[in-house]
């Protein structure tokens, strides 16, 4: 397959999967970053491994549903265990997460190695950086065929999965935006106003788990963590308005998804090399670059702008004759 057909069957579905994964993670991530729970994404995306493997072992197939169900259960178990260790064991939150998610990830690795899973290509590597290259769309043959609705019904499962989850997250966040904003800002106030802060916070974590799990198979856990944190963090440096922040994070997430894939797949070719780079890794790297740019150059909260203001203030004080 080459040329347009190759692009439509290999690159387009991969771009769609990656971009929708980026969008849903970036969307949910806004509230994690605000609530200082960024590392929940890290913990969840590691802790689901034993659930995925168990789902696979029980069902015996690589169907989506058993693995997703297993992952959800594992995420739930991880959340409960972290709370238990933190509350009952009086272990600091970060360390409690560390203890639980490493233990569960290790369990997943052992389960994978225990043979049963080796019969099919389920290995620990693809958990880390996904299998974007396995997302194939055999429907379209050329650009004009995209006009045919029947072609769209053959859209690969992974793309449908991340797209559905993205729209689910979007709907929930639009619907409950007011509550989410209040709880992110002041959970105690929310409680006194009759909005169950605990429930909303658990909802955020659950949504994180769903977004992470849906994105997992295509792009891997590392990209999930990057997308949960980097676009929202970038947006946070650019604006003080939560709505604008969410919109900006979607913009950054989308650009990163498309841009990262294109750079990874076609960058080396453009430079005359006959290889391609890992797209998930490239997207994560690009999101880091955008964040670094925002850290340096953001108009109000960037390092350079702050420096300039501090120098101006010092000069003013000096002019006062100190």
């Amino acid at each position, binding site marked *: 397959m080459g040329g347009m057909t190759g692009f439509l069957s290999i690159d387009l579905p991969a771009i769609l999967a990656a971009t929708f994964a980026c969008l849903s993670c970036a969307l949910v991530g806004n509230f994690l970053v605000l609530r200082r729970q960024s590392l929940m994404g890290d913990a969840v995306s590691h802790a689901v491994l034993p659930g995925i493997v168990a789902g696979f072992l029980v069902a015996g197939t690589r169907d989506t549903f058993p693995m997703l169900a297993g992952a959800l259960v594992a995420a739930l178990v991880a959340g409960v265990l972290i709370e238990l260790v933190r509350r009952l064991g*009086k272990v600091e939150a970060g360390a409690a997460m560390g203890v639980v998610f490493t233990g569960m990830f290790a369990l997943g690795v052992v389960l994978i190695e225990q043979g049963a899973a080796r019969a099919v290509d389920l290995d620990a590597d693809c958990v880390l950086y996904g299998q974007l290259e396995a997302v194939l769309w055999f429907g379209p043959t050329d650009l004009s065929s995209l006009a045919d609705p029947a072609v769209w019904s053959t859209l690969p499962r992974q793309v449908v999965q991340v797209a559905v989850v993205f729209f689910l997250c979007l709907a929930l966040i639009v619907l409950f935006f007011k509550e989410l904003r209040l709880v992110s800002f002041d959970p105690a106030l929310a409680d006194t106003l009759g909005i169950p802060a605990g429930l909303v916070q658990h909802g955020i974590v659950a949504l994180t788990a769903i977004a992470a799990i849906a994105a997992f198979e295509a792009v891997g856990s590392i990209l999930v963590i990057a997308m949960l944190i980097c676009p929202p963090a970038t947006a946070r440096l650019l604006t003080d308005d939560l709505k604008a922040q969410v919109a900006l994070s979607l913009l950054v997430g989308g650009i990163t998804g498309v841009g990262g894939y294109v750079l990874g797949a076609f960058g080396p070719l453009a430079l005359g090399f006959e290889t391609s780079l890992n797209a998930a890794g490239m997207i994560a790297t690009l999101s880091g670059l955008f964040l670094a740019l925002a850290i340096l150059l953001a108009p109000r909260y960037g390092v350079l702008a702050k420096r300039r203001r501090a120098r101006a*203030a*010092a000069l*003013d*004080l000096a*002019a*006062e004759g*100190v």
Partner: protein
Amino acid sequence: MLQRLRSLDFIPPKEAGVSPLLVKGLTVAYHRRPVLWDVSWTAPQQGLVAVVGPNGAGKSTFLKAVLGLVPPLAGTVEVFGRPLARQRRLVGYVPQRESVDWDFPVSALDVVAMGRYRMIGWGRRVSKAHRQAALHALDRVGMADFANRQIGQLSGGQQQRVFLARALAQEARLYFMDEPLAGVDAATERAVLDVLRDLDSQGRTVVCVHHDLQTVADVFDHVLMLNVKVVASGPTREVLTDANLRATYGHRASDAPLLP
């Protein structure tokens, strides 16, 4: 390395008339709001000094800036005639409320022994003599019975006494305390007052931020009246006058104009 440092600690004899603390032109601003403005002050040779002033007058900031915990915009601090950085071992500090991890695995005695770490020096163990000194300091604040308690298992007042004992164990010459008498239980108040009197009788200088104007004259022989700038300073009887009080508390520091 510490041997060299220790030989640098320098205390001139009283007759030389070098003040324990000499502050010149100390200026601190948060963002653009001045918190301390051109504060110059010479501490008395010995005795208890109260730093008084309204909320937001920069009392705590004054202590922190003198100790180098807050970067000043301008000004110098000398301890016994030399820059603070070379005389750190002579200076003790009791913050208002320690913001430490109360679940940390240390006992009260461990905490007090930390006051002697500088004396002990790099890489050396805490010897029996130093432990004994720490225990003695705990005894002076009435906490010897709790020496082996983990600090989280003490009451708030007891915790505060432990940190007071840590400052004592340091055997410093110049002490800074941030509101040591604010909101403490009766036992702790007694312990603090005893310690202050002890230090005074040993010829040390103690600079306390103090909020309660009623008790200033009972406890302290000197006052420094502060409201962003120095309003007055000197022996309590001479300085604590109606006129000075009005000048200090008359207008709120937060009403001070912003810098351009």
